């Protein structure tokens, strides 16, 4: 492909939120007739950069050039007028209005009397041209998610956008719909549009894009021709090859299997399959690491394992006792603990104080009640004891936990979940967003639980962490286990990268 001129060119974009650089000096350009993928993990700064491009955010520093001319977008309207359109993950359509009514939303130049016929004719032309067929007379709420996405894309084409930004467009699609979308994207490329394809899915990026820009922790790692790199290289750039730091870890004294999941199949929140016949076993006194690109079924797996998500099929055993179909409360007792990734959303009640949050998972216990009443004194005593042991820094036990820092929030949750003598711990992203000190602390506590004989499932996107802590390491891709490494220290980034990109481990399992 000959290098065509840039439609837009972002230079040195920096955007800071509350002192954290979401984008740090990023260059990014889109050329006519290309699909440019923007790849990165959650929180790498992809959305921030695109929100700058489509006029939602104003950068702290940096310039935007449109066909060589420097411009500044004050509002999304400016960006749309300049031919830049974004299809957000939530499509921003009006559900009660029809497809053709949605087309003209927020657009000028139609006069007071609308010519529905002309609008529908134009929709028909665009639909033929790009393979985006949809009935213009139907109200949007009657359409499937895939069709709604087509409407959102049509709307951008209708407003004559030259640059189309698609934010994780396949996340809501079935595989068939995704193939259709890719066909549309190829048409757009042929027609000379510039398409930005935001994703963290390696295989899709490899399939559809001409160039790919990789972001990591707010910085640009590289921009490369897609044809010149393999998925494993992309995975490495996205996650980073890191030096494994020394963690003071004793040799595993693993014992018998205590927790067993057989052939689990579950759906995600959009009723699409998230796990397809996944099996795993946790042994006494081990940390089983689970690596994988975010969104490959990790959340659904954790929720299924602790009874928070209904199984379509499969069985779960704890110490040979069948737990399939049991309630959350049967699962999450003294023996089985769960540290959800979403601390503020699931694990804690931000508006409540430390006592009320500490007792959330065992408020019904004899120790914390007096008849129908809560024994808040006993709760306060326990909360004081564990928060001290887990080094939670707080002005008092009576402040709402939303006032605590991220590290202290996580310590509070660990204090609740790791206190006592857990047999099984399901920990999801336990060090996500924490500073170095808090991260080390959390890791030590997980190792401590392991040494006391707990079976720990550690789900993380941080390979460094997984390699440092895990006794065994599994890789998940699209709801399936791609392979299980009995000795993670011998794993190479390449092998892991391949598995994370969806290639199953072929060599026979060692050990066992």
């Amino acid at each position, binding site marked *: 492909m000959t290098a065509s001129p840039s439609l837009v060119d972002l230079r040195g974009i920096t955007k800071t939120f509350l002192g954290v650089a979401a984008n740090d000096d990023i260059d990014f350009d889109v050329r006519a007739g290309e699909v440019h993928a923007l790849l990165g993990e959650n929180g790498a700064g992809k959305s921030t950069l695109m929100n700058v491009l489509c006029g939602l955010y104003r950068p702290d520093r940096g310039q935007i050039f449109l066909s060589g001319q420097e411009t500044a977008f004050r509002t999304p309207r400016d960006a749309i007028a300049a031919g830049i359109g974004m299809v957000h993950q939530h499509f921003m359509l009006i559900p009660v209005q029809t497809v053709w009514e949605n087309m003209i939303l927020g657009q000028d130049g139609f006069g007071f009397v609308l010519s529905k016929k002309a609008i529908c004719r134009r929709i028909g032309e665009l639909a033929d041209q790009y393979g985006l067929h949809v009935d213009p007379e139907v109200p949007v709420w009657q359409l499937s998610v895939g069709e709604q996405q087509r409407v959102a894309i049509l709307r951008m084409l209708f407003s004559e956008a030259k640059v189309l930004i698609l934010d994780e467009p396949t996340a809501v699609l079935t595989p068939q719909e995704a193939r259709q979308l890719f066909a549309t994207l190829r048409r757009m490329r042929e027609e000379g549009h510039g398409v930005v394809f935001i994703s963290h899915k390696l295989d899709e990026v490899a399939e559809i894009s001409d160039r790919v820009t990789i972001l990591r922790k707010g910085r640009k790692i590289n921009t490369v021709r897609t044809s010149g790199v393999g998925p494993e290289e992309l995975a490495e750039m996205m996650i980073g090859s890191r030096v494994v730091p020394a963690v003071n870890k004793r040799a595993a004294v693993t014992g018998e299997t205590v927790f067993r999941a057989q052939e689990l199949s579950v759906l995600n929140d959009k009723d699409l399959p998230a796990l397809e016949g996944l099996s795993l076993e946790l042994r006494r006194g081990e940390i089983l690491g689970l690596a994988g690109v975010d969104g490959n079924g990790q959340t659904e797996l954790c929720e299924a394992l602790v009874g*928070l998500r209904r199984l379509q099929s499969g069985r779960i055993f704890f110490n040979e006792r069948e737990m399939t179909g049991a*309630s*959350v*409360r049967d699962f*999450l007792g003294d023996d089985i603990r*769960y540290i*959800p990734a*979403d601390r503020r*959303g*699931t*694990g*804690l*009640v*931000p*508006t*409540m104080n430390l006592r*009320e949050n500490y*007792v*959330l*998972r065992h*408020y*019904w216990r004899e120790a914390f*009640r007096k008849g*129908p*009443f*809560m024994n*808040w004194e006993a709760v306060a005593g326990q909360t004081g004891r564990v928060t001290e042991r887990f080094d939670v820094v707080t002005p008092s036990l009576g402040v709402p936990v*939303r*006032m605590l820092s991220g590290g202290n929030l996580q310590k509070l949750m660990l204090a609740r979940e790791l206190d006592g003598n857990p047999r099984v711990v399901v920990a999801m992203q336990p060090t996500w967003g924490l500073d170095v000190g808090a991260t080390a602390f959390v890791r030590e506590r997980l190792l401590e639980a392991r040494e006391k004989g707990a079976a720990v499932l550690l789900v993380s996107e941080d390979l460094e962490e997984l390699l440092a802590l895990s006794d065994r390491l599994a890789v998940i891709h699209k709801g399936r286990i791609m392979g299980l490494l009995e000795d993670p220290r011998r794993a190479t980034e390449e092998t892991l990268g391949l598995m994370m990109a969806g290639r199953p481990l072929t060599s026979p399992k060692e050990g066992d």
Partner: protein
Amino acid sequence: MALRVEKRFDVPRWMDWGLPLISFALALAVGALLLGLLGVSPLKAYGEMIRGSLGDGYGISETIVKAIPIALCGLAVALAFTMVVWNIGAEGQLVAGALAATAAVRFFPLESPFLMIPLMVLVAAAAGGLWAAFAGWLKARWSVNEIITTLMMNYIAILGLEYFVYGPWRDPMSLGFPLTPTFHDAARLPQLFGTRVHYGLFLALLVAFLLRTALRWSRWGYEIRVIGQNPRAAAYAGMATSHHIVLTLFLSGAIAGLAGMGEVAGLQGRLQPGFSVGYGFTAIIVAWLARLNPFAILVVSFFMGALLVGGDTLQVVMRLPLSSVQVLQGLILFFVLAGEFFRNYKVCLRRREDA
């Protein structure tokens, strides 16, 4: 210069009571403008309202009479609101309670007040409770929006009331007026010190105390607070959210049902249409002004009662329509809700250059 809005991370303590007060004052100020437009001196009008409602013993007693159903309904909706279930149907639940109490008098007229009154309390609470629990069941079972169902069921209850008083329960001696016969003495709640203040007052105080205790100290209260503030965390803790929606709406409706019983047994001594002048709706404002605190609801109800009694005075002395008082109430709610914005956000000025 430009205005900039920022999310507030910690709310100053004074705002808990300061914001409602400021909202109230601003509502009165705007109300003054409206009164001015009606050609009335706002100072004189407000003066008359205060004199009529708080100026003497009679005024105060009448204010308390109005405050009783408002407080009970306010407590009722506050309970549901604590769980972030929007019970807009206290008015209908109040009517259901009054209907059930009247039915008890009609079909089981017991001689002893020590049996009759408890029976009326029981059936009124059950009727109001079931009326609300039905909406709760629809929500728990099929996620039907409770705002719509509780609101619509108000009208069913009110029309049901009219059916009975115009139809089967009409007093044959009423010369055609839509009234039931007066209750026998055992079915009347005693009144205090020769005023119209009835024992419903103690009911309201008792419910406020119980609610405060339950919400703060009981396991059940803890559960509904968690469900209200973070339903995902509630699921994580294994709380039975659906079950709580039905039960809490039942209790909420039961409290509103008690208010209805108080009105017919304590005040009117019979059932008649329009016996509630929208207490169940006023209650929503009250619960919000009181930030769902049961004791604060008692205080705010007293002021709302004063506003209603003062409004009556306005009608009589200054010949103003009842709707002018309702406009005042609406203004208060409007300003209180607007005040919420300032709890969550702060607005600051900044120069264009830093933008």
